[in-house]
C-alpha cells in the first residue's frame, strides 16, 4: 500500500468512498476492489485496482444482475476489456475520507456511459453546450 505501514480496512476505509479526480471533482465511487494473489505461498493478497460503475456495484448485490448490466453497457459503449471499469492503484495518489486519483474524470473508463449520454441524448437539447459530432470527451 502506498501509505507505508498504514493499515486500512477494505470495508471501512475503501469501499463506498467517493473518488475525486485530479481537479477534486467527484467522478465515481469505490464500488468494488480488485486483488491479485501473491506469488509467495503464504503472502497476503495485493490490492491492484479499485473497480467502479454500476456493473461493479451490482456484483456486490447479485452476480447475474451484474453480468446483465455489463452486457447492456457494452451494447452502448464499446470497451476493449470486458468487466467493470477499473482504476489502477498506481493512479491513486491519496487515500483519506475520499480517494484522490491522478487522471481527470473524462479520461476514466467509468465515464464512458456519461459521454455516450451527453453525445446521444443531451446534445440534442437546445443550449446543452455539447457538440454531438465530436468524438472527444466534452471539456
Amino acid at each position, binding site marked *: 500500500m502506498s501509505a507505508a505501514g498504514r493499515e486500512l480496512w477494505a470495508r471501512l476505509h475503501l469501499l*463506498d*468512498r*467517493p*473518488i475525486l479526480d485530479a481537479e477534486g*471533482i*467527484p*467522478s*465515481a*465511487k469505490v*464500488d468494488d476492489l480488485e486483488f491479485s494473489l501473491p506469488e509467495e505461498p503464504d503472502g497476503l493478497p495485493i490490492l491492484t485496482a479499485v473497480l*467502479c460503475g*454500476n456493473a461493479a*456495484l451490482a456484483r*456486490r*448485490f447479485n452476480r447475474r444482475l451484474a453480468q446483465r448490466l455489463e452486457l447492456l453497457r457494452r451494447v452502448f459503449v464499446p470497451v476493449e476489456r470486458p468487466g467493470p471499469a477499473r482504476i489502477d492503484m498506481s493512479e491513486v495518489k491519496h487515500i483519506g*475520507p475520499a480517494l484522490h486519483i491522478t487522471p481527470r*474524470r473524462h479520461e476514466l473508463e467509468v465515464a464512458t*456511459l*456519461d*459521454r455516450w*449520454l*451527453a453525445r446521444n*441524448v*443531451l446534445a440534442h*437539447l437546445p*443550449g*446543452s*453546450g*455539447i457538440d454531438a459530432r465530436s468524438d472527444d470527451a*466534452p*471539456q
Partner: protein
Amino acid sequence: MKRVFEIALGILTAIGGFVDIGELVAGSQVGSRFGMNLAWATLLSLFGIVVFAEIAGRVAAVSQRPVFDLVRERLGPRFGLANLLASLVITLATVAAEIGGVALTLELATSINYLLWVPVVAFLVWVVVWKLNFEVMENAFGLSGLALVVTGIAVWQLRPDWGNVAHQVLHPAKPGTESVASYFYYAIALFGAGLMPYEVFFFSSGAIEQHWAKRDLPVLRANVFIGFPLGAAVTLSLMLGASLVLGPRQIDVGHLYQAALPTSVALGKWALIVVLLGFFACTFGAALETTLACGYSIAQYFGWQWGKFVAPKDDARFHLSLILTLVAAAAVLLSRADPVKLTEFVIVLSAAALPLTYFPVLVVANDPEYMGVKTNTPVSNALGVAFLVLLLVVSVAAVPLMIITKAGG
C-alpha cells in the same frame, strides 16, 4: 458589510425555504379544524429542523461530505440503496406537489385550469436548472417568499382574542368534534410538513457547493436559528388566520385558494395579490429545490458530479436524472392526482421516513475522522438523541394513524 448582507440574505431566504406547499396546506387545514390546539406540532417540527439542519450543515461544512454520500458509506450499499429509493419516492411526490401548488396558484391568478399550467411549470423549472443562474433564481424566489409576511398582517387585522390564542397554544386540547386519532394524525402531518427530507439534503448540499468552511458556521447558525423560526411564524399565522375565518364557517380546506381566504377577507384584494405572489414564490422555489434534491441524492449515492453549477456537459447523468424527475412529476399530476391530497400524503410519509436520513448524519457528526474537533457537543448530542427518539415514535405511528383515520377523515 458583505458578511452582514450574506447573513441577512440567508435569513430571508430561509423563511421562504421553510414554508412550502406542505405548510400552506397543513397549516390551513389544521387551523380550520383544530384552531391553535396543534400549534405545538409546528413548534416541535421547528425544534426538529433546527437540530437536524444545524448538525447536517455542520457535518457538510466540516467534512465536505453530503448526506447521501455518508448514508451509503456508513450503512453499506444495500441499505443505502433502499434508503435512496424510499427518499426518492417521497421527494419525487414532493416535486409533483410543489409543481401542483404553482399550477394551482396560477389557476387562481388567471382562471386557466391548473392541468394546463402543469407542463408549463415543469418546463420552466427545467429551464432554470438547465441553463439559468440558479443562485440568483433561488434568492429571487426566497425574497419574494417574504410576501407571505402579509398573512401575519392579516391575522393582526382580524383582531383575534389573544388570550384565547395563548391558551390554545399553551394548554392544547382536542376539540370535542374530533377523534384522538385524527388529532395526532394532523400533528404528524404538521410535523412532517416542517421536516421534509429534501430540506436537509438541499441545505447540506448547498453548504458544500458554496464551499462553506468552519469559518462560515456563524452564517449557517443565523440561517437556522433566525430564518427557520420566522418561517414557522408564517405557518402559525396561516393556521391562526384559518382558525379565525374558516373554522367558524365549517370550511374544511380541500383547495389551495382556501389557504389565501383569511388574508383576502382581512385585507381585501391587494392582499390577495400579494399572498398569491408569496404562494407562487415559495412553491416554485421549493419545486426547484426538490427537483435538485432528487438529482443530488442519486448522484451522491453513485458518486457522480452534482450541484447547482454543474453544466449539462459536465455530468450528463445528473442532468438526465433531473429531466426524468420533472417528467415523472408532471405525469403524476396529469394523471389527475389532486395536488392538495398528494401534499397530505407526502408530509405524513416524510415524517415516517425521517429516521432513515437523520440517523446516519447523527452518527457521522460524532466521528472525529470526518469532523476533527467539531464533533457534536454533549448538548447537541442530548438534543440530537432526544429528537431521534421522537422521530422513531412519529415514524412508527404515522402509517397506522393514516389507515385508522382514512388520511384525516
